[in-house]
């Protein structure tokens, strides 16, 4: 009876748009769902440091090197806020990192694609951060207070990244033939995977129904994807590049673009391990973590010694 009352109270709050805070009662499934989503989000930020980090040493100007380094650093910072946000739900960062490393927690599958050229740094900033923002703007209204507040902060930085990525693409598109070709190739490789970032169609999405009811998610995968398609089409045109979707057509009646079908086989293939970098990304995380073990131990031991000295 008590449980049912609490369930009802909880849903009433959600319906009344009152944020759920860490000490409030919440259904176990809500807590689990949030931990899954927020930790996946944190892991994505952290694993996302790798593909872009791949170009820090090769950035072709000092200005770009500084911008890229600061960007990758911001991603790490987002990872930190999000780990802390997830910790408010009663899980530790160590547990989350273990889950990432043993494969039981996921990260955004987009980062399993390799960054092959310098233009990929621009395409990721523009398209991948751009897709992430569409999703995260919607998440600013998510029902869990701490998550909603971290989204507000993260969105500000992400939109800055998106502008920088787009500006990089614009510079290449207005540059030499080789630079323009590099930009086009990168757009071709990253456009479809960015559409996949919104997840499967609503009818196929495993977690959508309960997430919508609890207002963890505020808009559906397909609605968010449509927003992104609509905002990206004129941006591609402005760059003077070819749109990778040959079936893209403005639909006057709907007031939005009709677009070609995503290659869902590729989506599932990459998610399930057949991307070029799936193993590499996780292995890199494991290696850096292992190599750092003696440093973390030294730090803990030093703090311990300092404490016992003070006592």
């Amino acid at each position: 009876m008590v449980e049912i009352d609490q369930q009802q109270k909880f849903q009433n709050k959600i319906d009344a748009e009152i944020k759920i805070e860490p000490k409030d009662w919440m259904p176990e499934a809500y807590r689990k769902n949030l931990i899954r989503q927020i930790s996946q989000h944190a892991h994505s930020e952290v694993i996302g440091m790798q593909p872009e980090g791949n170009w820090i040493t090769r950035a072709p100007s000092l200005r770009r090197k500084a911008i890229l380094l600061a960007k990758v650093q911001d991603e790490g910072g987002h990872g930190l806020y999000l780990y802390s946000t997830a910790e408010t739900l009663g899980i530790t960062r160590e547990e989350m990192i273990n889950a990432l490393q043993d494969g039981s927690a996921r990260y955004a599958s987009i980062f399993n694609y390799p960054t092959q050229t310098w233009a990929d740094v621009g395409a990721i900033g523009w398209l991948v951060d751009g897709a992430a923002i569409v999703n995260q703007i919607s998440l600013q209204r998510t029902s869990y207070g701490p998550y909603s507040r971290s989204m507000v902060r993260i969105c500000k930085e992400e939109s800055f990244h998106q502008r920088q990525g787009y500006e990089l693409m614009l510079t290449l598109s207005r540059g030499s033939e080789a630079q323009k070709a590099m930009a086009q190739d990168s757009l071709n490789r990253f456009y479809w995977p960015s559409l996949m970032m919104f997840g499967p169609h609503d009818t196929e999405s495993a977690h959508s129904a309960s997430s919508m009811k609890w207002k963890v998610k505020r808009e559906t995968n397909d609605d968010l994807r449509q927003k992104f398609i609509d905002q990206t089409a004129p941006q591609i045109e402005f760059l003077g590049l070819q749109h990778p979707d040959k079936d893209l057509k403005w639909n006057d009646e709907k007031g939005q673009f009709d677009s070609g079908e995503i290659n869902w086989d590729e989506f599932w293939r990459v998610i399930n391990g057949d991307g070029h970098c799936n193993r590499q990304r996780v292995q890199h995380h494991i290696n850096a973590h292992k190599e750092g073990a003696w440093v973390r131990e030294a730090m803990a031991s030093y703090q311990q010694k300092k404490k016992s000295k003070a006592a």
Partner: protein
Amino acid sequence: MVSDMNEETKQAVLNYTIRLGDDAVVIGHRIAEWCRNAPFLEEDLALSNVALDFIGRARMFYGYAEELADDGRKEDYFAYMRDHREYQNLLIMELPRGDFAYTMVRQLLVDVFNLYYLEQLISSTDETLAAIAGKAIKETRYHLRRSHEWVLRLGLGTDESKIRAQKAVDDIWGFTHELFDLDELEQQMADAGIGVDNRSLQQDWSAKVKSILEEASLIVPEDSWKVKGGREGYHTEYLGQMLNEMQCVHRANPGLEW
């Protein structure tokens, strides 16, 4: 003021400034290699911060070099179009990042040097160099707080961290002597009140470094080996490899905007 300088002085200040840019870009690059490879996420962020300070510092020095050269060579020319034989950074800056102890010990040795160096450069009669030093010294104080603290943690942490830290000190020590050399150009700049007499920094540097190493219960090595040559463009094998990587995109399509 650049416009008041005679041609000879301008050339000398240019060469002096390029060296300072080289020091900053090379160590900045090395530290940036840690981003996504650090022992924990907070360190990824902190090391990136330090790397960003050095890259920003390089841009300020090269930006001034651009103004002094006044011949169309831009900051990226200095960073990307010169070969390792033309680079004149101090050797200690180009050593690979090694393990975390190696990076932190090198950082301590460099930070203490930068602290005393910049304290002098602030009074340079060259206003631009003095202004850059004024900004850089604030960053360096923060870098030194970090590297000091880390060397203590490593020296006093576990047996393993102590062994690694001591090995780093031993392996890097021979590269510290050239920090206090003065070649003809540097002598000229010091005499003119533009540059710093590095010899005058050695005593303070040694005292400070020794006190920190002792505090960390690490042994100060004997001065039995000395490697020199950075200011003449005579580098270790590491710099050529580092620059190959750093410059490859820029050089594949030279003369373009990025």
